């Protein structure tokens, strides 16, 4: 069987398995109860059955192979209910999700409601993996920040995927910051073992809201993660999204930002590091769908040994979006000849009255800089690490949350 067909078969088997398990659990608790997400899973399975898994002939998957999934990640479900994986403390309120399971008690924050509601995200599906996510959900988390609420402390979501053998865990997050609210959310993906994390996150920023969003992906190199992130901005909302990631066996992020109303402002910063046969692929699209919105993206990537990174940054200025101002920069550093970075900006502009600046570069480590450090007694390896951290330093320095910044510096320098 061809890989896409095998994967589809396994995905459907995994989804059926989970649904059966959850139905039985529900029956044991009460004969009439059904798990609240069964309708979502059913719809997911139906959609999945109609989909085709992509191969390299599909443009968006040209540089990213799904071959690693043939080991059966899709058909088995990560079943650990507790974890020894630790995550750093960034202060604020913490909520831990283990293999798609929510804690028995959800946190309490004034002006913020937590629920297990699964918001339908099928309209935003970027790929077959959105449907796989829906079909294999154990739980969903919806967070709503009330109008005018200023939440000072960050909400720290620790999302753990852990399994000893190939298996998957799905997580779905929906975050709404209502008009005039201020909110900081940290999504931190950690884990161990050959686990596939299937994530979907949707973030809604209401009119004049101020949202800081961190997406930290520090799972181990043997893990896999296919994630979708959509951000929806209303009038005069300000969103800052910081996405820091270490590559793994297969890391893919589909990110789409909808600037739906005028005056919305987006700052997006990202760092990706791929070493030792790992892979990371970011597909980012900014939809300037309303006038006078600004988007400013800076991504920096580093690849070493046989690491591979892919970056596709698309800016789509819609016909009516006059006065749009969009910037995109992706600078990359190759640490060795075997490493590869494919970076491509894509501009699609249906409007004359716009400002648009974009640039991507891929460069080598500067041998003069390296020699300078070595001539001061610093080993070649340490020099490379220092120069790598130096390369991404401007982005680390600009992280508003100091605890995240401090941790990220140590984490990323250790991953170099």
């Amino acid at each position, binding site marked *: 069987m061809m890989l896409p067909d095998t994967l589809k078969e396994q995905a459907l088997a995994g989804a059926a398995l989970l649904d059966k398990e959850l139905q039985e659990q529900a029956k044991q608790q009460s004969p009439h109860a059904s798990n609240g997400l069964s309708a979502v899973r059913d719809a997911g399975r139906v959609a999945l059955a109609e989909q085709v898994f992509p191969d390299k002939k599909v443009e968006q998957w040209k540089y990213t192979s799904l071959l690693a999934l043939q080991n059966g990640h899709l058909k088995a479900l990560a079943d650990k209910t507790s974890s020894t994986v630790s995550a750093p403390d960034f202060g604020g309120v913490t909520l831990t999700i283990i293999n798609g399971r929510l804690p028995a008690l959800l946190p309490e924050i004034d002006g913020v409601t937590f629920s297990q509601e699964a918001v339908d995200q099928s309209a935003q599906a970027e790929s077959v993996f959105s449907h796989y996510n829906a079909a294999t959900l154990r739980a969903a988390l919806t967070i709503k920040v009330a109008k005018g609420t200023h939440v000072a402390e960050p909400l720290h979501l620790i999302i753990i995927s852990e399994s000893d053998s190939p298996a998957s865990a799905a997580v779905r997050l929906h975050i709404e910051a209502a008009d005039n609210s201020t909110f900081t959310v940290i999504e931190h993906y950690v884990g161990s073992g050959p686990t596939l994390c299937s994530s979907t996150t949707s973030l809604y920023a209401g009119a004049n809201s101020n949202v800081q969003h961190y997406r930290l992906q520090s799972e181990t190199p043997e893990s896999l993660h296919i994630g979708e992130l959509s951000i929806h901005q209303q009038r005069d909302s300000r969103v800052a999204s910081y996405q820091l990631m270490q590559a793994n066996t297969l890391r893919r992020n589909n990110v789409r930002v909808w600037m739906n109303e005028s005056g919305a402002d987006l700052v997006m910063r990202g760092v990706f590091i791929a070493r030792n046969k790992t892979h990371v692929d970011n597909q980012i699209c900014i939809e300037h769908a309303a006038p006078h919105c600004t988007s400013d993206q800076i991504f920096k990537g580093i690849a070493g040994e046989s690491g591979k990174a892919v970056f596709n940054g698309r800016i789509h200025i819609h016909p009516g979006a006059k006065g749009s101002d969009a910037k995109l920069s992706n600078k990359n550093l190759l640490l060795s000849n075997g490493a590869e970075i494919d970076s491509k900006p894509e501009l699609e502009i249906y409007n004359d009255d716009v400002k648009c600046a974009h640039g991507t570069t891929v460069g080598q480590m*500067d*041998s*003069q*800089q390296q*020699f*300078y*450090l*070595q*001539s*001061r*007694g*610093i*080993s*070649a390896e*340490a*020099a490379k690490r*220092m*120069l790598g*951290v*130096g*390369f*991404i*330093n*401007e982005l680390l320095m600009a992280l508003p949350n100091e605890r995240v910044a401090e941790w990220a510096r140590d984490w990323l320098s250790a991953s170099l």
Partner: protein
Amino acid sequence: MLEVKDLHASVAGKDILKGLSLHIKPGEVHAIMGPNGSGKSTLSNVLAGRDGYEITSGEALFNGVSVADMLPEERARAGIFLAFQYPVEIPGVSNMEFLKSSMEAIYTARGQEPLDAVTLLRKAREVCKLVDLDQQFLKRGVNEGFSGGEKKRNEIMQMLLLEPRLALLDETDSGLDIDALQVVAKGVNSLRSPERSIVLVTHYQRLLDYIVPDFVHVLAGGRIIKSGGKELAHELEDKGYSWLEGHDA
């Protein structure tokens, strides 16, 4: 300390050093003078171990060990320090972070306990003061946006912290005004000791008014064509390098 014997070296496949010999004992200060393009920086880079600077024959022994077999960092840890003619800028790596890594590596190699952060910072501030470099420079990226003179003082600052056994100063005096020259000279002189050797590579005589060398060598065409005492520098100043043209040591 340093024994260079009939050294031939090439850069990018081009023969630059063509039989250079030099003997430097502990405690001595040698000046190497010569016209532009004579191979002064090549010698410095060969000794420090820069990639692409290849020894094709002859040898350079540092305390009896051939440097050819040592990595640049091993040479530094053994006590060789090169103050670069053109120090490179390294944005994103702070001077202090750089000094910390460097000091740690070199202290550890010497069998000394690395300095704790507070002591290191205090020491770094002291040497900054000595070379008239504002403490703010410790926080900035290595040489990032430094003026020519600031870069040179930053080199001397590092040298004072690392206390090398053999310091090679490659045209540290070029582009410095007279005040900065005196600051640099003061720094170098403070390092002079019976265990330490210093090589001043320079194009001009004036640095030697402030750091008086024991020996002066003239390098031309990849070889030392004349050696003498400090008076040789004055002679060169009066007569120019053309005086020695066609001259063979």
